[in-house]
Structure formats: structure tokens, C-alpha cells
């Protein structure tokens, strides 16, 4: 009987030991972090997400996005996350303190999404500073097939890495947008094209909300909200090699009554997905929330505890950096 007691005690002790060591103690260390702010108490990061993004997290979980996409950027010594431009710095515990469901993910069948909401801003910066190779696809008489794939070329991290010589300085997205008919929101982009690029690494989030930004073919710019809707509706309309499932059940096909909905998916350059004349495809509330959630994925704000490669480079380094 004595031996038996020690078995029970051992079984309980082992569980308690691992529970304390793996959950309770770490929770004391990183379980009650506060947002970071500067000395004046402004520039607070992170901020709680909006209501739509909160519901979007549920949609993201419900449809299993987390089984193919991670939301964490590993440090420079852990893989090529930073080289792939999935973030400007590693992720830190503080980035997640307001997340309703933390979906760090365990698999990268698809790319990391930790900063996917920040990418439109990054691209504008990239386009302003050094026109990206994607612009090479912009000459107007492009065939339908190449036009279908062009956003991907612009989106691919590899493209952003290699600073290909610009064919013409005017191919940056913004002037083209301004020229294209119906680009209401083009105004917010114009400064990016003409003025020198903003030096701050954190881009204004207003750009992120720029739903209607278009390429010269009238297609949505990569990683804008409109692009996400089209991508979710049919990933193959953007990248024919993608093996991502289509989430068509998050969209409704309906007859255009009177005025076309401003939310309707932009299928420019993808005639196969285009609904018949008089019909349009609009996102459901869930789809809008999912995209709001995606657009809220942004860890670009500098954190004291996670040094940013981009910010650190120009600054006089405290210690020797490699």
C-alpha cells in the first residue's frame, strides 16, 4: 500500500511539475504585459482590434486558416523569415497581448501572415523608393494571361528583394492609378509617388485602408482589401499555381439592382471569374470581417524588446551588428 501511495504522489507530482513549469511560471513572466508607449504616453502599441477584426478572428479559426498559415516571424537565427520580408523584426510576446485567439500556427503551406496587413504600405514604400519589378508588367498591351499573374509578381517577396533596375520611373503604382478611370482613392497615394518616401519605418495605417487602389490594369493592388476578397473567392485567379482552397461560400452572387455595389469583387484581368453581365459577387459579413482581421495583422511597429533590422540599420548601432 505504501508503494501505491508513492505511485499516486509521483503521478500527481509529475503533472504538477510540468503544469507549473510550462504554464504557470511562464505566465508570471509574460502573462500580463502592457502595451508599450513613448515617454509622453502616446504612440501606444499594440492597440485592441476593431469589432470586425475580432469577429474575423473567429472566421479565420472556423475555416482552418491556421493550419496552413503561421502568424509569427522568427528571429534572424531561426530560418529566413526576415529575408522573406515577412516582417521587419521578430515577433515578440507583446505583439499578441490583445489577440482574442492567438493563432501562431505550426505550418507554412501558405506564407506567414504576421504582417500581411502591413504589406500594402510596404509596397508603396518600395514602389516610391525603387520601382519594383512588378512594374515591368504594367505596359498596357499585356495579354490576359500575364495580367492575371502580375499581382503575384509584385507580391512575391523575392521580387521585392532584388532591386531590379526600373524600366521607367513613371511605372510606380500611384501615377498609373491616378490615370485610371474611377480611382477615387488614388489621391492618398499620389504623394507616395512624387514626394520622397516617408523615412519612418512605420507607415501610416491610412494607406492600409485604401481599398480601391488599383494597378494600371484596373486590378486591385496586392494585399489590399479588394485583393484579399478576390484571392479568397478564387486564389487561382491571382496565382494559378496556388493550392489554397477557394472560399466562395463566404460570398454571394446577386443581381445588380440599380447601382453596382462598391463592395463587389474586382475581377479585372480574370474573365473566367467574372459573373454574367448584370450580376455581381459581394462579400458576406463574415468575409468582410475576415479581411478586416487580415488587414489588422501588422507587427511593423518597433518594440523595445525586439530589435528591428530596418530601423537599426541607419541608426548608429550601440553594439556591432552583423
Amino acid at each position: 500500500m505504501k508503494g501505491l501511495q508513492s505511485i499516486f504522489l509521483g503521478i500527481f507530482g509529475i503533472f504538477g511539475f510540468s503544469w507549473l513549469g510550462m504554464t504557470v511560471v511562464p505566465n508570471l513572466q509574460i502573462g500580463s504585459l502592457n502595451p508599450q508607449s513613448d515617454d509622453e504616453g502616446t504612440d501606444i502599441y499594440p492597440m485592441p482590434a476593431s469589432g470586425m477584426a475580432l469577429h474575423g478572428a473567429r472566421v479565420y479559426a472556423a475555416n482552418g486558416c491556421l493550419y496552413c498559415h503561421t502568424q509569427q516571424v522568427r528571429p534572424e537565427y531561426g530560418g529566413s523569415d526576415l529575408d522573406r520580408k515577412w516582417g521587419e523584426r521578430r515577433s515578440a510576446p507583446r505583439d499578441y497581448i490583445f489577440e482574442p485567439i492567438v493563432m501562431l500556427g505550426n505550418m507554412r503551406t501558405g506564407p506567414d501572415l504576421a504582417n500581411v496587413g502591413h504589406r500594402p504600405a510596404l509596397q508603396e514604400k518600395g514602389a516610391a523608393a525603387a520601382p519594383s519589378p512588378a512594374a515591368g508588367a504594367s505596359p498596357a498591351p499585356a495579354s490576359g494571361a500575364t495580367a492575371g499573374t502580375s499581382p503575384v509578381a509584385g507580391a512575391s517577396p523575392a521580387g521585392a528583394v532584388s532591386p531590379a533596375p526600373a524600366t521607367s520611373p513613371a511605372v510606380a503604382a500611384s501615377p498609373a492609378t491616378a490615370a485610371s478611370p474611377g480611382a477615387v482613392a488614388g489621391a492618398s497615394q499620389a504623394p507616395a509617388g512624387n514626394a520622397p518616401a516617408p523615412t519612418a519605418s512605420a507607415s501610416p495605417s491610412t494607406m492600409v485602408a485604401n481599398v480601391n487602389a488599383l494597378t494600371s490594369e484596373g486590378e486591385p493592388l496586392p494585399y489590399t482589401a479588394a485583393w484579399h476578397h478576390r484571392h479568397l473567392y478564387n486564389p487561382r485567379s491571382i496565382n494559378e499555381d496556388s493550392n489554397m482552397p477557394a472560399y466562395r461560400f463566404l460570398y454571394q452572387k446577386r443581381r445588380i439592382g440599380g447601382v453596382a455595389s462598391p463592395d463587389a469583387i474586382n475581377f479585372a484581368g480574370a474573365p473566367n471569374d467574372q459573373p454574367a453581365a448584370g450580376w455581381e459577387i459581394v462579400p458576406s459579413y463574415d468575409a468582410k470581417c475576415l479581411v478586416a482581421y487580415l488587414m489588422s495583422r501588422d507587427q511593423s511597429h518597433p518594440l523595445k524588446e525586439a530589435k528591428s533590422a530596418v530601423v537599426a540599420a541607419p541608426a548608429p548601432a550601440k553594439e556591432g551588428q552583423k
Partner: protein
Amino acid sequence: MNPTAGTQEPPLGDMEVTTSDVDRVERALIDASTRLPVLVFYASAVGWLLFATLFGFLTSIKMHSPDLLTNVDWLTWGRIRPAHLNALIYGWGSMVGMGTSIWLMARLCRTTLRHPLLLITGAAFWNLGVLMGIIGVLIGDNTGYEWLEFPGYSAITLFVAYLLIMTWALIMFRYRRRGHVYITQWYLLGAFLWFPWLYAAAQTMLFIVPVQGVMQAAVNWWFANGLLFLWFGSIGLGTAYYMIPKVIGRPVHSYYLATIGFWTFAIFSSWTGMMRLIDGPFPAWMITASIAAMILSVIPVATVGLNHHMTMQGHFPLMRYSPTLRFTVFGAITYTAFSIVGVIISLRSMAQIVHFTEVSMGWTYMGLYAFFTMVMFGSMYYIVPRLVGREWRYATLIKLHFWGSAYGIGLMVLLLLVGGFVQGLSLNDPTLPFDETTESILPYLRGRSLSWILLTVSHCIFAFHFGLMLLGFGRTASLPTFLNPLEEKSEGGH
């Protein structure tokens, strides 16, 4: 040295007629008392296995043919994948594990099963919980935490069901005969007590009083690895410790080694959870602790492996005849391989490459299927004839089942490990566009669908054979069904 191993098991056909041997009568009574509850658990488990197989097959196909069945929300890839994995974990794995544990516990406690109704109610509630959970995941109530996808209404049902079952197990243990506690009972007691604590702690820290930020991920993987090792691992190892000595008819090589193996297994494997979060946004010490625990878990693996090997020494030819031994030894050997692969992928230099690839999936299947499920198949081949009083009908079907499962899972694990490594190398080459990293794994994923064909066929064969046994179409014979005709007198039992 122990009360069970070494006892020659009488051929089942004799059981109803011989009354001279007190032990035989006792065993027959115990078996009869466990008959209904264990068969209920087994039948449910086999049902869930078929469901998990169907959904696993579909998940695998949709991975490389994404436009298949794409317009229905509940059939989207991101919903059938958790449905598949949770059916495998909670439907098949947990139910077959509990069925086997109940029978082993009754046998080893040498007491007839009390309160079978409690168990059957527990099984019914458990089935209900899994069903609600699967439906919940399919209609979009996935919680977003891996291995814990079942929504709250399912989780609470599972927990209540579990308490019923565990209460029973403890009652059984309380009324056991004779003081000696065999090593299998240690593992089973551990599993029965660890599961509710793990489950309750994870549910509380994720849903009732949610922890902040990344701690959710830490709790999540602490639970998932806990379930993999402390629940499935314990039941699997405990069963192997019973079946191997029993079938070959000699005691465990070293009881002392077995004890060391148990405690080191429990201590180290319960700390391995953070190996799933290597280089993630966590304090480095957490992850280092898990990597260290993973490496140290080589100690129990070596101990258990050595012990089984020494027990089997000289009896390996018996695997030619005994289905139980063949499945169990396959599982026990894979357990060693599973742990070694676990150590390799936990090393930081390796994790850098394979961490976010199919390798982690391959490793999970290695533990859940190649080790645990194979051991469970073995135990069913041993236990079911003793419950229904008939022998397995067709040796050919058992052979087909074995080879289908062995080749199927072997192929799948190999493809996922190799393919995942290739995928990881491409992911780590930033000059390669992302699309090409996914393309690098696609041929392997197509191959995996082939392995699912093998598994599907083998599971259907097994379910058919099991159905025959349930319906009383087994053979009435004095000898168990051997895989191959005996060439000479076999010294072992079944």
C-alpha cells in the same frame, strides 16, 4: 515476478468447458464481465476510425486538388482537417485506448468489472461529445486551438463522460485483488489521472479564464504534447508491456528497468510541449527546457526499447504467427523511431528548416498511428476473441490489414518527413519565390494520397472482420487464428 506474464493462456475454446483450473474460471468470469462495455468502446472506436479515414483521405486529396468540393462550407479543407484529426484523437484513439485499458485493468486487478452501466453511460456520453464536436467543427465552431478544436458544448460533454469512465477505473483499482501492481497498471493509472488534469487545465486556461497573448499557444501545445505522450503514449506503452510478455509466455525481462522507464518517461515527456514553438515569441528558457526534455526522453525510450527487446529475444519468429505480437512489436519499434525523430526535429539547427513544414504532421502521425494505433490493433486482435468467444475468421484478412496499415503509414510518414525536409529547405532559401516552396512539397502530398488508399482499404477490411466477430461469425476453434499455419508446436499462446 509478476502475476500475469508467464501464465500460459488457455486457448479460448476451452474456456467454457473446463472448470478444473480456478485461474481459468476466474479469467473467464472477468472477461465475461467486461464483455459489453469493452465491445461498446471498440465498436464506437472502429466507427470513428472509418470516419477519420474518410475525412483524412479527403483532406489529403484536397491538399493537392484544392478545387474539389469547394463550394460547400462544411467540406472546405480547413474544416475537414480538424474533423479528421479530432475524430482520430478523440473518436478512435481515445475510445479504443479506453476499451483496451478497461479490459487490461480488469484482468490485472483480478476482479470482475463492477458497475458496467457506468461505463456504458460514459461511452455513450463520450460518443455524443465527439459527435457534437465534429459537427461543431464542420459548421464553423472551431475554437482555433489545435487538438482542442471542439467547441465548449462538446468539451463539457467529453469531460463529464470522462469523469464517469475514470470513476469506474478508480473503483476497479480500489477493489483489486493482491497487492502487486504490474507495470501496465502504472501506465494506465497515469493515463487515467493525467488526462482529466490536462484537459481541465487547458480548457480553463484557454476558455474559462483565458491567459494573455502567446501564453495561449504555450498552454495549447503543452496540452497537445501532454495528450500525445501522457495519454496515448502511456496507454500504448502499458498495452505493449502486457501483450508482448503475454503472447510469448515469459515475464518482462527486467522489472527494475520498467520502473525506471516509467518515471523518466513521465517526467521528461510532460515537459516537451514547447518543442512545437521553437524560435517563436517566447522567453528562450521555455523552449530550451522543452528541447532538453525531448533529448532526455531518449533515456526512457532506450530503457523501454531495451526491455522489450530483451523480452522478445529468441522469440521474434513468433511474429510470424501471432497477429497481436506482430502489430504490437511494430508499434513498439515505431515508438523508438518516433522519439528519435522527435529529438532530431527539436534540435534548433534542424527546427530552423523543418519547423513549419509537413515534418511536424509526419511526426504526429508517427506517434498517433504508427505507434499507438498499431499497438491498439494488436490488443484488439488479442482481446476481442476473448470477449465474443469466437476466433478471428480469416487469417488472410488479418494479414491484409497488417500490410495495408504498415505500408500505408510507413509510406505516409516517409513522404511527409522527406517532403517536409525538402519544403523546409526551399522555405529557407529566400531567393525562391514562395509558390515554389509549396510546389516542392506537392509531389509528396500526391504520394500521401496513395498511402491513404492503402490505409482506407486496410481499415475497411479490419472493420468488416470486426463486424463479423461482433455478429458471431467468428470461428469456433480450440486454437487462435494464426497468421500462418504452425509448422511445429509453438511454445507460446495466442
